[in-house]
């Protein structure tokens, strides 16, 4: 048992549901007790989805505990198949089904006999994998399923596309700025003259998956999601993959050079050097920013970075290498992939922190007293408590981290966005600091406290106590209204009763 207040990555089934509901016309059925379908709420609220989240629950209740699910799961699968005609139904185990150890495989096989669509069991164990690992595995499982299915039917297309083409991996629902990144990556590919073969899983149909081997290469921009699939396709079809995250000026260039190499190795003749040069110097403002006086003022300022592998590593490199900021420590909660992180950031920070204990991270922030934090929503709140500004760079995130405006983190526009994010965090901190030194914006005392200062009315103890329970921002108004009410009716003392009578009479 572990005492836990906060977790950075969710349970395994969330990862599976993120993959399933990213695909078009794929339905997930959770084998779970009532209330475990909170994923639907998150998807509907955070990403403001207009469509119903294609996730339903085959409810585990007392009867299931006593007798096993029996026909229930099978019935739910075939029912959903008839109602929505999905291409694929993914039966999703949860922590509950992990301990019940029912033969879900058997249910899937039986349901498959009746269902018109495909049925599959997500192969993820709650106690072995977290959200990110489960998402990565499920994506691979679905791709492999449809590749093998096509192969069996002899429908697997052979050969590559005429022009260089790419599969973009890892864009998924509830991912941090994923949709914006996707648009930016497609734009980048278009600029490079590369056709986008498929984007998975977001918005993809499972029928497209069989055409994946036709791409010249696979692009895996996020460390956490897609690598297993890319490796699978490399093994099966020899398709090379590029797993350099194009985040920040230097890394974007590195990613493009790697793409160039991969394409040229297959007989393409491309040279992206001029493109990189033009973009770096004139499209992205980040390189110019690094030279500007603004950035000079940031030199040697202390920062800490914490997040998932992809974003924490990229931000650490940008801060240290591109802006001359002193990254005291960089950390990740992807403990299962810690070696990669260490290798990526070791030379750019003093210390590497691998943990998923938010208390430890909070303490490490307090100890270092950085000028700015780049982390998740949890670090933002630590920052609030310690009065240190924070830029949010990774999940877990809130609804404000699903902006409507175009805010990619990847590609050349991404470099501009990240520059703003970093610079705004530091200046806010500076401004705050100066305000403190000079005693605030406006040093004039507030002379009058409004019309109710001398009311001649007496607030009784219970009246005052009730008044104090009213939220601060409306308390003044409630006080004035109550006193007005008391004056009109000739009450001398204002008790809790008078307060509520006043509330009713004015509807406040």
């Amino acid at each position, binding site marked *: *048992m*572990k*005492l*836990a*207040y*906060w*977790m950075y990555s*969710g*349970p395994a*089934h*969330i990862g599976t549901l993120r993959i399933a509901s990213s695909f078009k016309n794929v339905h997930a059925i959770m084998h*779970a*007790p*009532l*209330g*475990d379908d*909170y994923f*639907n*709420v*998150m998807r*509907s*609220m955070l990403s*403001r*989805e*207009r*469509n*119903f*989240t294609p996730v*339903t629950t085959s*409810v*585990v*209740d*007392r009867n299931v*505990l006593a007798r096993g699910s029996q026909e229930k799961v099978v019935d*739910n699968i075939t029912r959903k198949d008839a*109602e*929505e005609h999905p291409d694929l139904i993914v039966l999703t185990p949860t*922590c*509950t089904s992990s*301990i*019940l150890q029912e033969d879900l495989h058997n249910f899937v096989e039986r349901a498959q006999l009746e269902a018109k669509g495909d049925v599959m069991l997500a192969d993820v164990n*709650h*106690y072995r994998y*977290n959200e990110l690992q489960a998402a990565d595995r499920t994506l691979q499982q679905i791709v492999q399923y449809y590749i093998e299915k096509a192969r069996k039917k002899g429908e697997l297309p052979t050969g590559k596309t005429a022009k260089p083409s790419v599969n973009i991996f890892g864009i998924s629902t509830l991912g941090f700025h994923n949709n914006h990144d996707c648009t930016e990556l497609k734009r980048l590919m278009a600029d490079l003259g590369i056709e986008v073969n498929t984007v998975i899983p977001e918005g993809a149909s499972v029928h497209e998956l069989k055409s994946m081997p036709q791409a010249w290469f696979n692009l895996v921009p996020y460390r956490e999601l897609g690598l297993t699939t890319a490796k699978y396709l490399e093994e099966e079809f020899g398709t090379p993959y590029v797993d350099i995250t194009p985040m920040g000026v230097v890394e974007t260039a590195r990613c493009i050079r790697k793409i160039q190499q991969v394409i040229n190795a297959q007989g393409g003749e491309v040279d992206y050097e001029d493109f990189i040069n033009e973009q770096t110097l004139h499209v992205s403002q980040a390189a110019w920013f690094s030279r500007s006086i603004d950035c000079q003022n940031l030199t040697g300022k202390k920062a800490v970075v914490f997040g998932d592998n992809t974003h924490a590593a990229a931000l650490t490199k940008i801060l240290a290498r591109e802006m001359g900021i002193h990254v005291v420590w960089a950390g990740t909660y992807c403990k299962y992939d810690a070696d990669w992180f260490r290798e990526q950031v070791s030379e750019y920070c003093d210390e590497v922190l691998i943990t998923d204990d938010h208390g430890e991270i909070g303490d490490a922030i307090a100890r270092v007293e950085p000028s700015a934090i780049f982390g998740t929503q*949890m670090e933002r*709140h630590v920052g*609030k408590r310690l009065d240190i500004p924070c830029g949010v760079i990774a999940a*877990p995130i*809130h609804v404000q981290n699903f902006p409507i405006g175009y805010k990619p983190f990847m590609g050349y526009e991404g470099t501009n966005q990240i520059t703003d994010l970093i610079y705004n965090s530091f200046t806010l901190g500076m401004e705050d600091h100066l305000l403190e030194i000079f005693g605030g914006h406006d040093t004039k005392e507030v002379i009058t406290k409004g019309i109710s200062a001398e009311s001649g009315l007496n607030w009784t*103890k*219970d009246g005052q106590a*009730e008044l104090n*329970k*009213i939220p601060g921002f409306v308390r003044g108004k409630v006080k004035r209204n109550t006193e007005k009410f008391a004056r009109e009716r000739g009450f001398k003392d204002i008790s809790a*009763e008078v307060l*509520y009578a006043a*509330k*009713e*009479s004015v*509807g406040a």
Partner: protein
Amino acid sequence: MTVAQQPEALNFECETGNYHTFCPISCVAWLYQKIEDSFFLVIGTKTCGYFLQNAMGVMIFAEPRYAMAELEEGDISAQLNDYEELKRLCEQIKRDRNPSVIVWIGTCTTEIIKTDLEGLAPKLEADLGIPIVVARANGLDYAFTQGEDTVLAAMAHRCPEKSPVSETEKGERNAIQKLMNFGKKKEDIAQDESEYVDHPPLVLFGSLPDPVVTQLTLELKKQGIKVSGWLPAKRFTELPVIEEGYYVAGVNPFLSRTATTLMRRRKCKLIGAPFPIGPDGTRAWIEKICSVFGITPQGLDEREAQIWAGVEDYVKLIRGKSVFLMGDNLLEISMARFLIRCGMTVQEIGIPYMDKRYQAAELALLEKTCQEMNSPLPTIVEKPDNYNQLQRIYELKPDLVITGMAHANPLEARGINTKWSVEFTFAQIHGFGNTRDILELVTRPLRRNNNLKDLGWDKLVREEAKI
């Protein structure tokens, strides 16, 4: 309005139970705030933790007095000793927070692996010196607000059995009372007491925000009824005395286990009344309590009329409109009854669980309200099936759907007004004074639409999108 119907009975149905609701462990979110010296330990998995973390939103950052005891593989396969593990965590909680009570919330996992929480608790309680209350608020058995019911039922066992002091000693021993009476003459204190009619002690149950507690207490005081205590109180150490023969009344419709416990185990007499939600409900609640104590209620007619007059601007907006309650928090019957009184037509009342005995008076009032308002008797669908409900919603085209957040945005995108049901659980909706607050919530989508109505953007999904 439809043609007057012959009064018939309410129609009850039961569907598949495939609906969206919150897990009952969500009750820790409001109970830890209500019971100020408590600490809630949810013994479950990452799934439970993830739900709480996300459902509680910003509250999570306010150093909540709750935590997960996250079960690991070793706990599931019994390689670790439950007692030792729980002892270690509870000692840490005692050291860091020093609460007056630790509430263990049992979850689906502890049910399935049959962790004997009720057995372990007394032993650890003795070792640790802190009361440990066990509530099995899990998704296998309960929905959303029923979580509070399991916690309060467990707390009911902890209420002191006898008032610790006799009347004469009270003056000397109850220091706080003395302090509050400081400066008052003896006669004044006596007069305070004489404001109440002589009636057997009444204890109310149900967790409400403190301002609402004060309002309802004062409301009964106007009738001369004294509220001897409230389950739960602000602090665990202030749980009310409950002696055999005390009267109890519920303030929320989802407290049937608590009611049962108070009746059977604590030998209390339950006053079965409609719930004080809406001015009609509040009035009926007070009247019922008065009638049990043989008191003729004073001034309720004027008071109710006054409240209705005060909210006429809001009622005007919903009168004659239809509403469909998908059902997820058990407030549905009371809400529907109030909305029918406002002049709405209720097309369906979905509800997770229907205790016809505990809610009998509320159901009767619903029936009566329908007859008086000349409104058709709605169907009550227990354990609804959300998919089927959506088909009915498309067919009926209600003016308002009260539903969970999973369906709200998709329905809005299809031009159907929604109100998020969970808000009714957290907003102050009880008593006369909060009528406006309920209507504020109910009318919000309609007011928003009045503001946007000329824009012509009511359906925002592409035609091919499957609905």
